[in-house]
């Protein structure tokens, strides 16, 4: 399986229409500088030597579980789940990293969610390993993973109510 085929599967599974309009800014370049996928393809091949990733997919928040299933079907392993706080745009980004244990392909799946109500379905049903990564992301960003079995703080103290990786977190 190559990155191309995978990109093909992504575009069949997730027609571009369902992608959230807010994931790209007005001028067509997303805020993190990634050139967005062509309208018909949510997934785009990237050069590994330049980016450390073979394929990037930008999806709507509702599609991440389906993407995880797709990854699972193709024998990918969960690498990490993490967040990014885009304060200026009022958005949070959740990045799901996958790697393939046999052929070494790297896939990053991204989804943007509104910052005021950061909610995204959990993929821990598909990849139990995502459980801890999502808990950690919840710790750091306050992103709620709906359907997650246990979102108690993992790395932060049990009674932590703050989310230190939010850009407006001052340390108090």
């Amino acid at each position, binding site marked *: 399986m190559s990155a191309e085929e995978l990109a093909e599967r992504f575009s069949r599974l997730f027609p571009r229409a369902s992608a959230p309009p807010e994931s790209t800014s007005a001028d067509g370049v997303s805020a993190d500088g990634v050139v967005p996928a062509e309208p018909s393809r949510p997934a785009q091949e990237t050069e590994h030597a330049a980016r450390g990733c073979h394929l990037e997919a930008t999806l709507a928040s509702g599609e991440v579980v389906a993407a995880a299933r797709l990854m699972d079907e193709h024998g*990918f*392993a969960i*690498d990490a789940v993490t967040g*990014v706080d885009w304060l200026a745009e009022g958005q949070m980004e959740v990045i799901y*990293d996958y790697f393939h244990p046999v*052929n070494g392909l790297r896939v990053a799946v991204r989804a943007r969610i509104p910052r005021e109500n950061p909610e995204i379905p959990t993929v821990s049903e598909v990849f139990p390993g995502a459980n801890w990564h999502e808990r950690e992301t919840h710790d750091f960003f306050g992103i709620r993973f709906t359907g997650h079995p246990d979102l108690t703080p993992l*790395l932060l103290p049990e009674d932590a109510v703050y989310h230190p990786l939010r850009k407006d977190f001052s340390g108090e």
Partner: protein
Amino acid sequence: MRFITLCVRTLAVSESNFISAAEHAGETFVLNLGPQHPATHGVLRVKLTMDGEYITRAEPVPGYIHRMHEKMGENRNYAQFLPNTSRIDYLSAMHYTHAFVGVVERAAKLEVPPRAEYIRVITSELNRISSHLVWFGAFLLDLGGFTPLLYAFDDREKILDLLEGITGSRLTYCYYRFGGVCNDIDDEFIRGTRAFLEEMRPRLKLYRELVTDNIILRKRLIDIGPISAELCRKYGATGPVIRGAGVPYDVRRSEPYSVYPELDFVVPTHAEGDCMARYLVRMEEMGQSLRIIEQALDRLPEGPVLGKAPKTVKLPPGDYCYAVEAARGRFMVRVISDGKEIPYRVKLRAPSFSNLSLFEEASQGMMLPDALAVMGSLDLVIPDIDR
């Protein structure tokens, strides 16, 4: 005052390892393994629900030495964050620094002179051996064998002396720089490393005879704690854990970096997936690392060791990843830059974190000493989990 005493007593009964009345009546009890326990090698707590000596549920509770390295990364420029990277997993500091300088070099498109790349490989592999030696000793300590620890530390000492000679420190090296390494290696180091290669091979044989072939050890490791390739995949376990399940996944091969593609080495795998498989993978990796070092020393080119790098590094806006094969598995740094001299976001993907996350599933129904053997065979470094 009486109230405080009462609180303390209630706490002592519910949280400590005293048996409470409720537990007397019930069939299971909760055993707090850690945060201070000889087998957790640091401040990891595992909440064990036990039925007699059988574990019905093992819930790791990490986070006791969480230092929020990722936030620190957002508060200082790239060069200033560099010393932090060797403190995430203090046993494989070189690999972690490698990943961070790697991501910056990838994003800023910096050239690294070939000599520097070879030096990086040599020091990385030395570091891998020293890390595996610590694991070897500590693992045997978990299993109740004391002496191999001292032998392993004797060998490790030689590596630390070598690395101290060129980097100036023994554990948190911070030796790599954007575009190369900070000091060139000298003849003394090369001679010392070659001598070490000669000394280490008979030592590996000694470990095989003393430990690997030992019937007590074999009984304790064979068929204990099987972790399947599927389980590794679902939890993202990497390094010797997935290789011990028969999958030859090694970042040095799957996402080649540095000069590893030019070097000839085998990725050791064992299909059994039990503690013995993980043990053997690590032992064989030490031999492979010796091979890599030998080849790299033979091919070591002349030239500069530090390429051109801007005084203050600024990365073009974007999202960059760089993964390396650390001693415990896949370590990845993700840097998101907004073009400023301070990164917008640094994500550290630590191998021990994923490796530990499967412990709950892998230790089901196991006896306590077996579960500790499994935990030891995962080779956990707690600061790596907590970051």
